[in-house]
């Protein structure tokens, strides 16, 4: 095992998640390893189907039950009391006592993620009641505090509102209040701003950053929006077809991406200063994400890669190599593709 820094909150080693389908085992996540420290924000980036959401559900063990879904690997969560919990080995009752308490999750779609027949107050108070043993009245008081914390005006009046009575942004704030109710050490936010207006997105991101500074919680932020990544992440992990393909702190990743896929992703972000400059077209990565049941041999990105070299890239799955300090890349040609090497 790796010697863990004392402020490491979550450490994931060789996590693999497979779904049983009529066509065989579908590997949704393969051999994913990473860690998040206290106060750090790790962005998990990738296209739909790259395995980023499944990874987060796997950490909380919210994936479907055993015969349909197999989770392997090691996930260690360190709680503030100094204890390390081996999440994949914990019995369900102990796992349940950590969920919503030491680690919490904010989901993508705040409308469908809130129960339509219970009030916002009840739903926020629920976790506090079970993890902190508060009575109903005290838990509702705590819920009002939390609503205030996430910037909802008239928190006491909002307690008795139903989800459909709140706007999208308010609902997501309520979701965040719910996740923060027991002051988790780890917050997983699964595309928390995707379903929101751009202006509301910015507010929610700001709120999350502000709350993180207050609580020093570790945040895993799942997104496919690189603009958001640049805004809030400390480190970035890029996933493709269930595997980590590049991992680095945010600045090196944006300045010098080494995996051709990451380069493609960055090129496909529309930028204001490009508009009409030389009549350039926005670059898109050609092709589609491979079929997980029939993956290409070798590098999963090879069929779409402009630097693809037959006989080399499709020979074997490339290893995730350290390409510098805290910068890992999964590409057999990364060193020859460096700008310096090409020049």
């Amino acid at each position, binding site marked *: 095992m790796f010697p863990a820094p004392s402020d490491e909150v979550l450490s994931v080693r060789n996590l693999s998640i497979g779904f049983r389908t009529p066509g065989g085992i579908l590997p949704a996540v393969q051999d994913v390893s990473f860690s998040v420290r206290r106060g750090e924000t790790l962005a998990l980036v990738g296209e739909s189907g790259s395995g980023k959401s499944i990874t987060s559900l796997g950490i909380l063990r919210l994936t479907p039950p055993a015969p349909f879904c197999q989770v392997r690997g090691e996930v260690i969560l360190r709680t503030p009391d100094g204890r390390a919990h081996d999440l994949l080995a914990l019995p369900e009752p102990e796992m349940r006592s950590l969920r919503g308490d030491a680690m919490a999750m904010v989901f993508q779609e705040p409308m469908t993620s809130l129960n*339509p*027949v219970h009030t916002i107050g009840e739903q926020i108070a629920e976790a506090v009641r079970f993890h902190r043993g508060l009575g109903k009245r005290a838990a509702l008081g705590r819920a009002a505090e939390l609503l205030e914390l996430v910037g909802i005006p008239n928190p006491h009046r909002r307690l008795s509102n139903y989800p459909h009575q709140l706007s999208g942004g308010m609902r997501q704030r309520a979701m965040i209040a719910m996740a923060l109710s027991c002051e988790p050490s780890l917050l997983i936010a699964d595309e928390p701003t995707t379903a929101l207006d751009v202006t509301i997105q910015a507010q929610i991101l700001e709120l999350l950053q502000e709350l993180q500074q207050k609580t020093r919680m570790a945040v895993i932020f799942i997104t496919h929006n690189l603009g958001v990544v640049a805004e809030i992440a400390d480190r970035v992990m890029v996933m493709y077809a269930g595997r980590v393909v590049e991992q680095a702190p945010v600045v090196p990743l944006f300045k010098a991406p080494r995996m051709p896929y990451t380069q493609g992703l960055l090129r496909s972000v529309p930028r204001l200063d490009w508009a009409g400059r030389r009549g350039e077209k926005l670059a898109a990565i050609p092709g589609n994400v491979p079929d997980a049941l029939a993956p290409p041999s070798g590098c999963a990105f090879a069929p779409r890669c402009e630097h693809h070299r037959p006989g080399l890239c499709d020979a074997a799955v490339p290893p995730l190599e350290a390409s510098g300090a805290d910068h890992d890349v999964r590409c057999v040609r990364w060193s020859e593709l460096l700008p310096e090497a090409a020049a």
Partner: protein
Amino acid sequence: MSTYLLRRLFQALVLLLIVSAVGFSILHLAPGGPLSQFAAGGEMTQADLDRIARDMGLDRPLPVQYAEWLWHMAQGDWGRSYRDQQPVLHIIVAHLGATLELMLTSTLIAMALGSWIGILGAMRRYSLFDSLATIGAMIAVSIPTFWFGLVVIWLFSVTLGWLPAGNRYTVGDGSWLNQLHHLIAPSMVLALVSTAVWSRYMRSSMLDVINQDYIRTARSKGIPERRILFRHTVRNALLPMITIAGLQLPTLLSGALVTETIFTWPGMGRLFLDSINYRDYPVVMGILMFTAVLVLLGSLVADLLYGLADPRIRLA
């Protein structure tokens, strides 16, 4: 809310008018008529029959007869039975108790048992229990009631002698134990199909809810499974059941034709069948209107209850 009720009431009146006109026409289109029983004896002359028809008002054109029936109905006069000259409303009220007793018992059994089977089946989807419940429901729905009723009588009354073969109570024995004894077989027969149907509705409603995002959210909060099941899953799964229960309301009072006939149960279902056989137009029309009102009332009650149970729905 009150405008909503007024609108619903107006819609109901229009519907009742249509139902009565269609019902009246079909009834009079049926071959035979109230006079055929007098003619059957062979002792009456055509002149006698014509006189009776004139007395009963049956010689006039159909629209006139309908208008007259409607006019009386609007004033609260349901007419009198051709068979015994009793007021129609009295006859209906006299048969309600027996029907309510039977239908309420079987419906409560069906809802309780059906919900339980449906919830358990959905929670352990594709388990042995779920498969057996699915096959069982299929069989229960496919069994014709008249056949199953006869089998129950043959097995429990004729062969084993455990249960009475029919009637609401033994003449001369008015104890509730005796009534309960008579209630078992017919309510069992009736509950069989509705339990099966109810369990299927409940199961699919549960499966809809189990896959909702908010159940995953509840799980992510680490609250106990029991609470997730009852407060989050069942609570939401029961919502569509309100509508189905509302549609059941009319059958509570209109009774079950086949079962009541097989078990000689003196309820509304048997009254309806007997009245049709006698071409007792006023009674048949009375039951028809009574049932139509119940159907409309049932769906109105269901909608109002839905508004109470689901905060997203506010009736306006």
